[in-house]
């Protein structure tokens, strides 16, 4: 589980929406883009958008493509860290807090196999609300809020 330092609430992070979690023709994705215990994002305070997108494309469009023509990275979205954390602190339709607490921590990638170095890499982490040292997957209700929060731009 990620052990990096927490990122300031004022920072903005970027998430890639990739095939097959995104449908270009429907302009819609699935909240499962955000349901893991750890969700990869990248920090705009460390690298600018063009450099982050270049890393996404190197790792996903070029390296894993079998025909050299696929475009797995189909959209990018961005959101403020404070707003991300807040999505788990808003009551559900049933008037209780979701059983998850979110943190956003630095997690730079360096010398890892099959991954381009990315000093801006960070993670959105889900934790049990009552025991916030225990990782947990992000509930779909919160994941849907995150999906809506990141204003997606097609690539």
């Amino acid at each position, binding site marked *: 589980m990620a052990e990096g330092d927490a990122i300031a609430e004022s920072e903005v992070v970027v998430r890639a929406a*990739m095939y*097959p*979690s*995104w*449908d270009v*023709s*429907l302009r*819609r*994705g*699935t*909240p*499962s883009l955000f*349901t*893991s215990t750890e969700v990869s994002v990248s920090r705009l305070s460390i690298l600018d958008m063009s450099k982050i997108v270049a890393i996404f494309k190197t790792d*996903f469009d070029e390296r*894993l493509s*079998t025909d050299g023509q696929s475009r797995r990275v189909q959209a990018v979205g961005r959101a403020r860290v404070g707003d991300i954390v807040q999505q788990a602190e808003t009551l*559900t*339709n*049933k008037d209780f807090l979701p059983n998850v607490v979110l943190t956003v921590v630095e997690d730079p990638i360096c010398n890892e*196999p*099959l*991954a381009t170095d990315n000093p801006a890499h960070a993670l959105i982490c889900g934790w049990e609300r009552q025991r916030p040292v225990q990782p947990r997957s992000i*509930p*779909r*209700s919160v994941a*849907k809020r995150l999906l809506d929060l990141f204003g997606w731009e097609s690539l």
Partner: protein
Amino acid sequence: MFPSTVVHFEIESAQPSLIADVVVVRDTPHLSMVKSGLTTLISRSAKAAVGPPGVERLQNFAQLKSGWDGAASNPISLKSIEVFSNFFADTGLCPDRAGVFMSAERNVVVNWPDAGGQLVELEFHSSGVDYFVERSGEEDTVLANSAAFRNLSTLIAEHAES
């Protein structure tokens, strides 16, 4: 002479595994055979629910090999396709504007906006279905072949119309 390739379709279940070997002779027919093999796994109702674009996407998901999303990623779960297929065959649901996705856990995901534009989502996995109804905030997992699985049809049917 083109190299031949053997494609294994393995259905995960409590029953002895069903494995169909398909021998093909070149890349394009290879992909064609993968597609046709997958299509036979999907019920008519499930095909109707997701429409031709959804079936096409499922066929393309089936071509994703191990490592498609990093070292730990695996091909789509054929058991997930089976549960997806059976769910729509059992319920006859045919939601408008259904989209088909594949989760990081290699499961089939289907979602659609309800009449108010709020999302309904089903993720089909080897033992059942994770469901989410944004309007009511309901979110849970039901096991296939359970009473809850059958009740899920009623709940979802209420949100199947756009």
